[in-house]
């Protein structure tokens, strides 16, 4: 028996996403990036960490190291992996329910700490796997199964939240622009520190936003000054994750350098420890 499937990097697990699901585009972008890492002989260093939801199935489909964790907890798991072995390339896959609902505390702290991870939010603005409830980025009035009369809440803007939380790499991409997405993921992996990507990923079944995104998505021009927080905020506010938009910028909103958590917090060497001598010295 073998874990490998019929195409490079795939496993034998049958894909169970709905036809038309935005996750297919995301998967192929990730594969593209992983194939590059394979060429560089780094594939064995990659660890994918996922939450629970439609997005999370991605780890079953890829024949690389992975930790299929629990709903909302991608980031602490990924953090633990990176701390314990900083030579690993750790990529988190979360849903928007995962990342912005159940697990938002970890997201803020990952940004604050600048732990060296890449974090991809498969943001379909709906709970997919639990059959269509509103999430923190669903537009107000969204009719999901827990809010059949319309969601009573304004959506969060995760780009703003990340900027306020001191993230050092803040990006958005769209599965409808696969090259762009692959490029952003590569840049995120290169970034030394916490790299956040909100990936617009239509849920064909419960919240089909393809037309909307196709209409309004605009790539951020290269002239955008990435290290400028005000400029990043201005771009971030062009779309509030509401039902309407004038323009939805995608690309890297913000990127700066700052020491990583691993550099700042981990002990430098693991000395050999002489228990007997230590105890004699300190406990008598």
């Amino acid at each position, binding site marked *: 028996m073998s874990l490998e499937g019929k195409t490079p990097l795939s496993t034998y697990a049958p894909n169970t996403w709905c036809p038309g699901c935005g996750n297919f585009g995301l998967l192929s972008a990730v594969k593209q990036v992983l194939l590059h890492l394979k060429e560089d002989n780094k594939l064995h260093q990659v660890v994918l960490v996922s939450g629970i939801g439609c997005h999370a199935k991605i780890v079953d489909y890829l024949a690389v190291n992975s930790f299929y*964790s629990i709903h909302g907890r991608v980031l602490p798991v990924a953090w633990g992996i990176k701390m314990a072995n900083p030579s690993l390339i750790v990529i988190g896959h979360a849903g928007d329910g995962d990342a912005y609902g159940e697990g938002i505390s970890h997201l803020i702290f990952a940004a604050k700490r600048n732990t060296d991870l890449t974090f991809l939010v498969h943001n379909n603005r709906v709970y997919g796997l639990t059959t269509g409830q509103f999430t923190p980025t669903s537009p107000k009035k969204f009719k999901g199964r827990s809010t059949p009369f319309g969601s009573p809440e304004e959506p969060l803007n995760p780009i703003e939240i990340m900027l306020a939380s001191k993230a050092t790499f803040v990006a958005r991409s769209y599965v409808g622009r696969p090259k762009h997405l692959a490029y952003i993921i590569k840049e995120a992996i290169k970034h030394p520190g916490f790299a956040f990507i909100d990936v617009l990923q239509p849920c064909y079944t419960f919240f089909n936003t393809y037309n909307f995104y196709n209409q309004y998505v605009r790539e951020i021009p290269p002239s955008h000054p990435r290290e400028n927080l005000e400029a990043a905020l201005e771009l971030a506010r062009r779309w509030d994750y509401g039902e309407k938009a004038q323009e939805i910028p995608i690309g890297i909103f913000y990127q700066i350098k700052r020491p990583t958590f691993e550099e700042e917090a981990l002990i430098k060497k693991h000395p050999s420890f002489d228990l007997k001598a230590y105890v004699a010295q300190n406990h008598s």
Partner: protein
Amino acid sequence: MQKKFEINILFGGQAGDGIRQLGTLWAKLLAKRGLYVFLYDDYPSLIRGGHNFSIVRAANYPVETHKDQVDLIVALDLETINRHHHHLSEKGFILSEGKTSQGFSLPWSKTVKEAGVPRIMKNTVALGSLAKFCGISFEELSQVVKKLPQAEKNLEMAQKGYNLIPQTISLPSLPEEKRFLFYGNEAIALGAVAAGLKFYIAYPMTPASSILHYLAARRETFGVNVIHPENEIAAVLAALGSAYTGSPAMVGTSGGGFALMVEALSLSAQAEIPITFVECQRPGPSTGVPTYTMQGDLEFVLHAGHGEFPRVVLAPGDAFQAFYLTALALSLAWRYQIPTFILSDKHLSESLFCQNLPEKIPQISYKKWHKKDEYQRYSFEEDGISPLAFPGDKRAVVKATSYEHDPFGITTEEAEMIARMQAKRLKKENLLLQETEKLLETKGPERVPALVCWGSSKGAVQEVCKALGLRFIQPLVLRPFPKRALEKALAPASKVIVCETNATGQLAKLLKYHDLEVDEVILRYDGRPFTTDSLKKKVEPLI
């Protein structure tokens, strides 16, 4: 043989007066004399003011518990005398700043003020007075005091205190033997380090916090990363991330914090990732009484987590056991790829013990992957234990998962695979039982009543057994439950009396559950531990 000697001293004052430090220094002083010591620390949940006290018992034979009745009170404030004078033995003394007919009135505050040193140094002055009172040489005293920060000033204050009072009594000393002083939490921390811990990840919570503080201060020495994350949920999940890479991790907390970790406990079981939990109990439910003690979380820890899976629950009763069992907890976690627990409580975690270290320390080891064929993280094996490989290994793809899965770690919903994997994991329980069943302390004669206890009640129960000639039984492992070993240990007893500091008798229930008869249950659930004298009074009418 020397005549039995013991001296019990209560140190009291306000939070911020350094009462615990005073008691600890005193304990060190006597330990250096070769005496056995034990320190009990009692403090409310506040930072300044209120009333703290520590009781230090010292003897020329092993002591692992304290008494209510004391021989000497060292009172850094009046409140101490008001609260505790009725605990003073008839011939006892009081050292204090106030007038007293039973001791000495000593101007400690004045001394400190005149010297212009920080108020907190009053405790050093008092220590000086106490040392002199007990006939301890200033040389001995300075050995201990000079290790303090601001050594010179402290030595000066000790000297001043020393001069305030005449020698009144004298203490024996014993030939030196290698014994060490450990707070329970220090022993837990050291046991983990000795077994091979690499990450301690914890959010502060009394009475577990001192593990965090102790390790954080010594992380470079120990080679252990110490991480304080945003909450308990992050703590346990980061620990699982660490262990997934092959790096042993432990988390520590109290009941409320552990409650938040239960979802991840279940994850560790499904993903078969080794982890050790330290749960330091305090009186609940909920916030309860944060700085006091209760053995109230046994049933919770035995059964926490959704779904069915093996675990090991170890309950040390003193520092030696805490050290050994924590090392064992890590070792078992890795050998069986399961969650393991150290169940402590305020009384064990924050009492000071004078004990040795075990000769043989359990080490982390695990079944390694032999790099034949393709790696299957969850391969079916005779013993249920699949070999481990870690990410970064070029030949293995390591897939851990919270879903039910096939041997590769790919999600399954097939009936047969589900049943096989459930059975694979549960299989380990029998092996575990074989290995842990012997973890039981039994002492004392046959055909007499037996006192059975667990965890921190050990000290008092053991001493009462000795005093009354009873049989003493303490299971160290509560899951898998050592039914046969206990059966054997209990068989010669004429009567079974279970002693625990909780309100419903959780160990007693566990014994009954395993068809072991229980005749009497002695419970204490006012947040205080058993003391040897109060427990004895409760036992006597029952035997």
